[in-house]
Every structure is written in structure tokens, then in C-alpha cells.
């Protein structure tokens, strides 16, 4: 099949860019926004590295059981024989690193750190993505409604957004999670905590998306092409879904990719403060908070989860910056 010279307008807003056909001719060719962005992103080596790390982390999170069975360790198996009974820190240097335990073991319990890091990635990635999804859904719906209909609806939604942005968020997140019962809606322990964290982080995140969507819709709805659609007899639903939303895909994509690392940091902070997932489920923030007691005697225990958070958040930020530059050529970076 030959490379298409023309792409239908419905494809102009495809967020997932398809790979460019090899050997495409350099002459004038209709290119979709997704294609243009992908071509730009391909030239941005740093962003690509960030993207590759993100992909690797997502895969590691999905296939965590496979990875731990490959290294022959499980996240909750205790190895007390590897712990120095006098100081309760791991025997050997660098936190007990060895051929069996590549990143060493935890103080006291002797659980394998690599296995716990891999399982901790599941929590971070899951909460990071799903809470961003919650924020995007609420933010897009309310932002579009506020921008398109204006009037009192806009006033109410905008006030709510302003108020949420000025809320002491971490405080409310901790308070909310602390009063949640152990089991609800058929979930128990960690399941409840995960769900509440996703909802709370998503709930405090939607105004960021909502404000951007509202601003975009506000300016888009005055454009001629919307007027043209309206004069051709298009209904509100059609205009919003077929004319407005495709134009919002780019800004929403950018802010979502930049929101995920923030959410991962929030999840880690909540776990650090003891209101994240419940032990023995592993999470990076919780490992760091356990490591506080050992920062003098077993610094590796603190460094490994810290570096894991750092690499993850950095990769998402690099990738997000790249996506922004690719989708927004006017950007000043």
C-alpha cells in the first residue's frame, strides 16, 4: 500500500502518532498534526530517552510478577539470615548487595529490595496514570461546559476551580484517607487506599486541566469554523464533540503527560507520611519513610527508592517537555 498523500480531517487530532512511512517523499504532503508532532518528537533525543524509560517502567510494573520470578525473589519473602543481629542492618557492604540480591536487602526483615522496587513501581504507575485520567475526565467535561455555555454555569465552575486550587491539598488528602474504613465497596486494605488516593489526587488535579480547557474553548467557540458549523445546522453536541474536542487533544495531552509525574510524587509523599498503600504492599514512598531510621547505618536503603522516584519523575518530565515542544511550536522552550 502506498503512503497516503491526504489524510481525512478526522485524523488531524490523533494523539497517538503513527510512525512515518519509511522513504516518504520530501515534497509537499498533507501531514496530520499527530504526524508533525511525531516528526518533531523523533528529533528530540532527550525526550525519546525519557519516553523509553517511561515505557520500560510501565512494562516493568505490568510484568512485575514475571520479573521477580526471573530474579528468583519475591517482595515479601524474609531473609533474616542476611541481617546482622547486632545492628539489624544487612550483612556485607552496600546494604547487602549480592548476586542473589542485586540491590541488597532491607534492614530487620531482609526482604529483597529489587523485588520491592519492582512491585512499588506498580503502585506509582497505577496511581499516577489513573489519577491523571480522573483529572482529565472531570477537567475536560467541566472545562468545556464552562467555556462553551458561559453565563452562570461558567461562574460556578470557575469559582469552584479557583477554590480548589487554593485548598491545602496535601492536608485534605491525608485527612480524607485517614478516616476511610478498612473495607468498602468490596475492596479491602490496600485496595481501598489505592482507590481513595486515585480519586483524591484526581479530584484536586482536575482544575488545572479544567482551566486550560475552558480558556481554549472560550477562544475556539468564537472562530469562524464553529460559526460555519452552527449555520449549517449543527447541534451543540455535534459542535462540542466533532469541532471543539479534537482541537483540545493537543493541550490536554501535554498537561496530562506533565501531570503524571506530579501525581507520582504526591502518591510517594502520601506513602511517606503513612497514609499510602498498607504494608506489606511495597511502595517507594513507604520504603523511604522506613529508611529514615537507617540513613546513617544503611544509606543504600534510602538511596535506592529515592533514586527510583527520581528517575521515574525525571523521565516523565523529560518526555512531557518533549511532547509539549512537539505539539506547541510556539512554545518558548
Amino acid at each position, binding site marked *: 500500500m502506498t503512503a497516503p498523500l491526504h489524510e481525512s480531517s478526522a485524523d488531524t487530532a490523533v494523539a497517538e502518532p503513527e510512525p512515518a512511512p519509511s522513504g516518504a517523499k520530501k515534497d509537499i504532503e498533507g501531514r496530520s498534526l499527530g504526524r508533525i508532532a511525531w516528526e518533531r518528537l523523533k528529533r528530540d533525543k532527550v525526550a525519546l530517552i525519557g519516553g523509553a524509560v517511561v515505557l520500560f517502567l510501565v512494562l516493568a510494573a505490568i510484568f512485575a510478577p514475571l520479573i521477580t520470578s526471573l530474579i528468583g525473589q519475591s517482595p515479601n519473602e524474609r531473609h533474616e539470615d542476611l541481617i546482622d543481629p547486632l545492628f539489624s542492618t544487612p550483612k556485607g557492604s552496600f546494604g547487602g548487595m549480592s548476586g542473589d540480591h542485586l540491590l541488597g536487602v532491607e534492614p530487620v526483615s531482609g526482604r529483597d529490595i529489587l523485588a520491592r522496587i519492582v512491585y512499588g513501581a506498580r503502585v506509582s504507575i497505577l496511581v499516577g496514570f489513573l489519577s491523571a485520567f480522573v483529572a482529565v475526565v472531570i477537567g475536560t467535561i467541566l472545562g468545556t461546559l464552562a467555556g462553551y455555555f458561559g453565563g452562570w454555569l461558567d461562574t460556578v465552575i470557575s469559582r469552584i476551580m479557583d477554590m480548589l486550587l*487554593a485548598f*491545602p491539598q496535601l*492536608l*485534605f488528602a491525608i*485527612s480524607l484517607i485517614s478516616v476511610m474504613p478498612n473495607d468498602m465497596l468490596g475492596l479491602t486494605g490496600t485496595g481501598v487506599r489505592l482507590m481513595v488516593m486515585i480519586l483524591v489526587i484526581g479530584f484536586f488535579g482536575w482544575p488545572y486541566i479544567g482551566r486550560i480547557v475552558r480558556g481554549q474553548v472560550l477562544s475556539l467557540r468564537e472562530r469562524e469554523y464553529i460559526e460555519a458549523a452552527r449555520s449549517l445546522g449543527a447541534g451543540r453536541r455535534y459542535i462540542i464533540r466533532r469541532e471543539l474536542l479534537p482541537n483540545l487533544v493537543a493541550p490536554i495531552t501535554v498537561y496530562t503527560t506533565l501531570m503524571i509525574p506530579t501525581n507520582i510524587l504526591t502518591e510517594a509523599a502520601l506513602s511517606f507520611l503513612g497514609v499510602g498503600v498498607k504494608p506489606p504492599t511495597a511502595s517507594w514512598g513507604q520504603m523511604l519513610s522506613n529508611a529514615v531510621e537507617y540513613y546513617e547505618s544503611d544509606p543504600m536503603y534510602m538511596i535506592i527508592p529515592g533514586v527510583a522516584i527520581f528517575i521515574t519523575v525525571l523521565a516523565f518530565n523529560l518526555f512531557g517537555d518533549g511532547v509539549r515542544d512537539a505539539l506547541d511550536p510556539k512554545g*518558548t522552550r
Partner: protein
Amino acid sequence: MLTYLIRRLFAVAVMLVVIILAVFCIFFLIPKWTGTDPATMFVGKQADKEAIEAVRQKLQLDDPILVQLFEFFKGIFVGRDYTGGGTTTHCSAPCFGYSFRTEQEIWPILTDRLPVTLSLAVGAAVLWLIIGLAVGIVSALKRGTIWDRLGMTGALAGVSLPIYFTGLILLAVFAYQLDLVSNKFTPFGDNPGEWFSGMILPWISLAFLFGAMYARITRATMLEVMGEDYIRTARAKGLREPVVIGKHAMRSTMTPVLTLLGIDLGALMGGAILTETTFSIPGLGQAVLKAINEKDLPLILGVTLITATAVVIANLIVDLLYGVIDPRVRLA
């Protein structure tokens, strides 16, 4: 101007009422919906029936939530009386009630801890403004050079590092290995030198994170501003470059920085939870984390209110300052 102020103050009042309502809902309504008895929650699961009943009486948990709310507001403005066990105690305004756990009055706890948090936030803010603005401006003016790349790489690392991790690394290296600074908090009144030594690492940790954000914003804004027509005009009329940058470009660059500063300083009043936990600083953040774990509602309400008030007042001041910095902004 006056109508603007009145409107803003009204919005502030609404905001504070909503926040109090939200806290009440979290600790009274949600446990009700999910089937946990608030009185049991405050006393603990092991407590016997009488203890739970006593708490219910003392906290007036059987009163409708609106009555409880009214009592709470009354306490803040005119003080309120508590009746329990045959005696009546008067708590004078501003009364935030008594801690469920220690039975101390809340207001003195808040006024004890506020200066600690304030010194943490303000000291860090001075540092991060200097670092953030300097790095941001240099990166923007020397765009594409090694300085720009170094600055922006550092800034990206700064926003990607959790503050408690930076804090722990700093503690391990500078307080434990090199023994240069103190690893614990000393009140200013006890020993100003020790206080300073103990505050350096918390300040640096906070400043690294926020300085990184400010550097990114400053650079982006500066680049945008330098492309504006009025900068070209300023250059065309023969102004020297330092004047163009210092006087003309800086003014516009300050606007978003100021917005952020208002939000961040306000939020830090109660949001320095992570920093205060990492460095064991007895500020409001540490108090509120303990209060949340102990379900000490009056203390949580007190800190939340202080934080929210700080946020809205900081935002109000920032909005008023806009008019000074940017002549295009008219407050109406």
C-alpha cells in the same frame, strides 16, 4: 479599588467557610456514611461504652452538624463555654476549642508553632527567589549555551526530586558524615546560632525544589518578554542592555513569579508537612500530621484555617501588588 477589596474579602470569607465545612464533613459525615461512629473513632476501638458516651457528651456529637458549626464560629469570634462533668469552662475568643488528645487549648498551640513554620517558609523563600530568578534570567539571556543547559538540567532535577529524599541525603552528608551543621531543631530563643545551623538544611531542601520551579518559570517568561515590541522600542531609543533587562523586562517577568510566590508561601504555612517531618521541625505541619493520625479534629481545624487564611491573604496581597508592578492591570 474599595469595591474590589470588599468583593475580595467577601470571597475570602466564603472560602474559609467552605474549608471549615469540608473539614467537618471529612470527620463527621464520611464516618457516618461508611458506618464508623465518630465518638468511637476519637476514643479508639478498645474504649469501653462509658468512655465513648462521655466523649459523645463532651464533644456534643449528638447535636446537629449545623449547631456544631455555629458553636465553632461563635467560639472564634466571641468565645464559647464548655459544660461537662458539672463545671463550665470559658474559652475566650479566638477560641478554636480544646485538643481531643491533650486537652490543651488550640489557639496557644497554633501561636507557638506558627513562628517556626513562618521562619522555615520565609527563610527558604528568600533563598529560592535568589536562586530561581538568577538561574532563570541567566538561562534566558544565554539561551542555548552551556549555562542555559546546566541551569535547566539542575532545575529539572530539582522538580523531579522528592523533598524528603533531598532532605535525607543532605542530612546524611552534611550533618552526619561531615558534621558541618546541626541535624535537629533548636528554638531561636534558646540559641540563635544553633537555630540557624539547624535551619540551613531545611531551607536548602525547600529552596532547591521551589528554586527549580521558579527558574523554569522565570526563563520561559523572560524569553517571551524579550521578544515583545516594547523591548525592541527600549533598545531602539538607545537604552543600555542592563537597563532594558533590569527595568523593562524584569517588570513583566515578575508578574507570574509573584503569583507563584503568593500561592507557595501561603501553602507552605500548613503544607511544610513533608519538610517538617523529615527534619523533625516542630511547626504547624508536624502538628497537623500528628493531629490527623490521632483524629484530633479541633487541632486539624485550627491548622487548616490558619493555612487557608494564609493562602487567601497571600493571594490578595499578590493581586494588589500586580497593580504596582504592571500598569496594565487595573483593579476594578
